[in-house]
């Protein structure tokens, strides 16, 4: 059996064709830097970050709309904490709160359920952001609301799906030699779902857990696959991920949500890459479709290119100069899983150069 040391040696002393592997998921980016993995790799192996930070790809229009909603009477907006400082085009949720908007942080969307029962004259709007890991949770909440006849929770959705985004990325950045597959999205979706896209794009994938050795194993797998010129999907997170995923989660998502085109901040609209509440449940939807396509892009901020691996954060002239976590210009610097913020917090210039 191969040892961790042998894998690490292979990755450190590799001197073949330069390769670039994309970690799709922001939680992986965080773990990669936390464990100092870029420093363990040969200069011919480069890790680039992908679009899997939901906060980073949520459109500025959406944030402005959420902030507006928080200012309405008898309305409270509930959000995950990492959205709160992200700048929209006009404002942010923290700025709205400072002006008297009712913005609250939730640990789980289910936190809102008892509050809604106890305060029937208040409308609770959930900023429903996320990928396939989080969408079933909103679906489960809606299911409970309907069963318990609760009508004062609405969803302002900006839900994304990863496979259309991967296909879009491989069409726009031809220099990707492998994907480190997202661990917890795959817990829901399974790994079979990636096979078609990986084969079409001729890019291998290794689905990985979040510990250092799991990420190293995934990079090793991708390196061997790129040498062999295969584009298979391998599951290296077998304790959690199966071929078909979580059928209950997939079916409840499908019951309440349908796929439509969605707006990705910095990228534009990607066909079939969003999930919206089905029309029969429109009374629970906070008019999410009317937010529309994000035509106004951030001026000067390279976040859109960072999340498809075309540039690294330090190639942006604003990085660590006028754009820092306390003075962010774009979402990638704000979010806990944003690539620019992760590079900044980990002193990336020292690690990666």
């Amino acid at each position: 059996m191969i040892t961790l040391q042998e894998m690490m040696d292979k990755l450190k002393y590799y001197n073949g064709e330069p390769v670039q592997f994309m970690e799709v998921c922001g939680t992986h980016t965080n773990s990669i830097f936390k464990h100092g993995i870029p420093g363990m790799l040969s200069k011919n192996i480069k890790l680039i970050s992908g679009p899997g930070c939901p906060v980073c790809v949520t459109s500025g229009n959406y944030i402005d709309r959420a902030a507006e909603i928080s200012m309405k009477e008898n309305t409270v907006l509930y959000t995950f904490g990492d959205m709160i400082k992200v700048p929209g085009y006009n404002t942010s949720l923290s700025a709205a709160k400072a002006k008297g908007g009712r913005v609250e942080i939730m640990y789980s969307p289910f936190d809102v359920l008892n509050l809604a029962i106890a305060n029937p004259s208040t409308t609770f709007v959930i900023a429903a952001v996320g990928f396939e890991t989080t969408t079933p949770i909103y679906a489960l909440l809606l299911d409970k609301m309907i069963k318990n006849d609760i009508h004062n929770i609405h969803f302002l959705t900006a839900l994304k799906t990863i496979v259309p985004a991967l296909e879009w990325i491989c069409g726009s950045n031809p220099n990707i030699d492998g994907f480190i597959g997202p661990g917890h999205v795959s817990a829901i979706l399974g790994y079979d779902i990636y096979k078609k896209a990986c084969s079409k794009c001729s890019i291998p994938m290794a689905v990985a857990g979040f510990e250092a050795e799991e990420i190293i194993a995934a990079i090793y797998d991708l390196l061997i696959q790129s040498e062999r010129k295969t584009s298979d999907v391998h599951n290296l997170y077998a304790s959690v991920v199966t071929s078909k995923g979580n059928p209950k989660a997939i079916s409840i998502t499908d019951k309440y949500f349908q796929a439509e085109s969605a707006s990705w901040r910095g990228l534009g609209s990607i066909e079939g890459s969003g999930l919206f509440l089905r029309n029969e449940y429109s009374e629970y939807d906070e008019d999410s479709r009317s937010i529309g396509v994000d035509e106004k892009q951030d001026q000067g901020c390279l976040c859109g290119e960072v999340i498809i691996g075309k540039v690294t954060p330090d190639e942006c002239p604003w990085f660590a100069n006028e754009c820092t976590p306390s003075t962010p210009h774009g979402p990638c610097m704000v979010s806990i899983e944003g690539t620019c913020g992760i590079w900044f917090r980990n002193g990336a210039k020292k690690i990666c150069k």
Partner: protein
Amino acid sequence: MCLAVPGKVIETDGITAKVDFSGNILNVELSLVTAEIGDYVLVHAGVAIAVLAEDEALETINLYAEVEDCLK
């Protein structure tokens, strides 16, 4: 945002559960999985999204065998 944390089910009625995360006991929605007392579940935003295979929940030694298997 897709962060998920493993914990051990210590009490359940099949719909919700009390889950022990290294000593912190939290209420967790269990409707998306089938789990019993003693199982390790992976919890995202207050909801269990997967049951961990028991042997592998506690150690990653099998990882290396998996890599070799995949690359055969």
